[in-house]
């Protein structure tokens, strides 16, 4: 199986230094454990810290050289079409760029590939040419899908941690550099400014409320006034609790 892993130029979460994106390293691990040939693919002005991805279990990396601020999508689409990959893995979203997670969807659209989001585990499917994907859902639930290949799959941060870095493997890995397709980005209407964390909405706390009221709003039940049983017998208490849990639907 030929697997392409899309690698973007990231920045470290804390220090903001150029660094590989963790979820893409996790994608490399999923590709390595699935077996088959894995190829890294990056479109951008320089390879920089992405050289480290070779030490995390990726044998070869193709760098499509672009000018600063060029759109990577046409170059990547062209390389993916030419490479005839069975599976394309990407991160859920980048870290350090636009971070919108839109590129894999745009690529899937131009290549006409089906796309599945948020994989945490991959395995061979029941028939040849199919793939089993385990998808992460909120609250620890999972969805197990069988999809037809070729396909594009994005990886979720709940996937297994990246393989440890091996220096010798990083030395051994090849990097092929070739020019990409120059394509200017569409002009953006975005206005940019330094990030300012916005206060998360606190339920019902009106502006200018007293400290006691704000604490009350932050800690009080959203569902309003509750039921109170004082000194019931243990059996009555147990019955009330089970009935309540059933009513709110957490107990079958």
């Amino acid at each position, binding site marked *: 199986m030929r697997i392409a892993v899309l690698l973007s130029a990231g920045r470290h979460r804390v220090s903001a230094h150029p660094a590989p994106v963790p979820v893409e390293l996790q994608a490399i691990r999923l590709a390595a454990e699935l077996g088959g040939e894995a190829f890294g693919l990056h479109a951008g002005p320089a390879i920089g810290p992405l050289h480290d991805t070779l030490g995390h279990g990726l044998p070869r990396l193709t760098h499509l050289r672009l000018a600063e601020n060029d759109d990577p999508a046409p170059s990547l689409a062209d390389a993916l079409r030419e490479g005839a990959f069975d599976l394309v893995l990407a991160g859920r979203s980048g870290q350090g760029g636009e971070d919108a997670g839109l590129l894999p969807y745009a690529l899937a659209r131009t290549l006409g590939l089906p796309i599945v989001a948020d994989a945490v585990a991959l395995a061979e499917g029941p028939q040849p040419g199919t793939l089993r994907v385990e998808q992460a859902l909120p609250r620890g639930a999972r*969805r197990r899908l069988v999809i037809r290949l070729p396909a594009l799959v994005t990886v979720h941060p709940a996937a297994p941690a990246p393989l440890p870095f091996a220096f010798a493997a990083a030395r051994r890995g090849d990097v092929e550099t070739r020019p990409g397709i120059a394509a200017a980005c569409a002009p953006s209407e975005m206005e940019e400014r330094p990030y300012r964390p916005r206060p998360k909405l606190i339920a019902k706390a009106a502006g200018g409320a007293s400290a006691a009221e704000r604490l009350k709003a932050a800690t009080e039940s959203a569902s309003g006034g509750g039921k109170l049983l004082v000194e019931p017998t243990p059996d009555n208490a147990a019955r009330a609790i089970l009935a309540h849990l059933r009513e709110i639907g957490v107990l079958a």
Partner: protein
Amino acid sequence: MSRSRKDPRTERATHRVEGSIRPRFDLAAAPAATGRPRRDRRAEERLALVPGTVRRRLDRTQRVAAVGALPAPTTPAVETPPRLRTIPEPACLVAVVPDAPGGRLTPHDRQLFGAARLLADANGGAVLALVESWSDELAIAGADRVLPIPASGYDPEAKALALLSVLDGLAVRHVLFPESADGGDLARRLAALSGEALFAGAESLSAKAVTRAAQGRRIEQRRAPPRLISLATDAVAPHAGTLHEALPVEFAFPEPTAGAILSAEYIPADPAKVSLAEADFVTSAGNGVTDFEVFRALVAALGATPGASRMVCDAGLMPRAAQVGASGTVLEARCYFALGIAGAPQHLQGVARCEHVVAVNTDLHAAMIERAGLAIVADAQEVMPALLRLIAEEKRG
């Protein structure tokens, strides 16, 4: 409770005798009241006094002021039904695509309707809910129109194609998605299909501007609301105040075609293994629990994820990973069942986002009892075996 408050300066000024160059005051004249009320702290304290306890106890929040009138603080009957607001001829539509797992709106979905109302009201438009099935929650949430979208099983591509036809066929000015696992996926699919720009993960929204974080939360991007927006949680308040019509809308969807997903199987989370941050139902032990064998058996029988207060973790009775609260894990659970937990502010912070709380405590005035939707003043050591017995009986019978 309030007396008027003295302001010595104005009081002195009212005594001033006019007409002389040197200031003269006639202090024998009747003083004038200023009208600013003054707090009477003694009377406030008398009201906050909790009766029926041996030790003097004050409840300044006044939440259990009526302890004499136990049991069950019934909700007062002053609830007036919300006013119905109709929008017969909307200038445009603001569509909302809630996740609504199992047909019930999540808190995130309600915030989405709040955002949609904001955008619709600014443009004289109506809110269109694109859901799988009609439910009466939608009228309260703030939907003027409802369009059921055909869906069978898990096929996001077919759903995105159906949404694309709505986008082309109706005068939809904005489409709002929740930035959740399924909602975010659908939003990006629709963005790729339609070629429109998606504003992903908006962290604030008004009729004039939306903002989002980019470059690893180092910069903030801002623009006028585009057509497709996905909204982060807790960015906009849910809609409240008026009731809306939730009128069904007719629309002819194109025939769906088979996608690349051959089969999909939902696997519920294993409560014993999921991390606390991801858990849906957490049962927690505090200092009031002494029998941890029974507690563990109860957690397994309820199918919950075990948690604990810091006192219990400090004592080594539960692993540190089970600690709930400010210095432990902040829960996202739907239901929290607290056994023998007092409800210190540090602990309650961890529970702040839980929708339902059930508490068992021997102390009627514990903060956890106030926070709970079902509060039981009883000994946890007796309630736990009773619960186990009842569950076992139900299994047998």
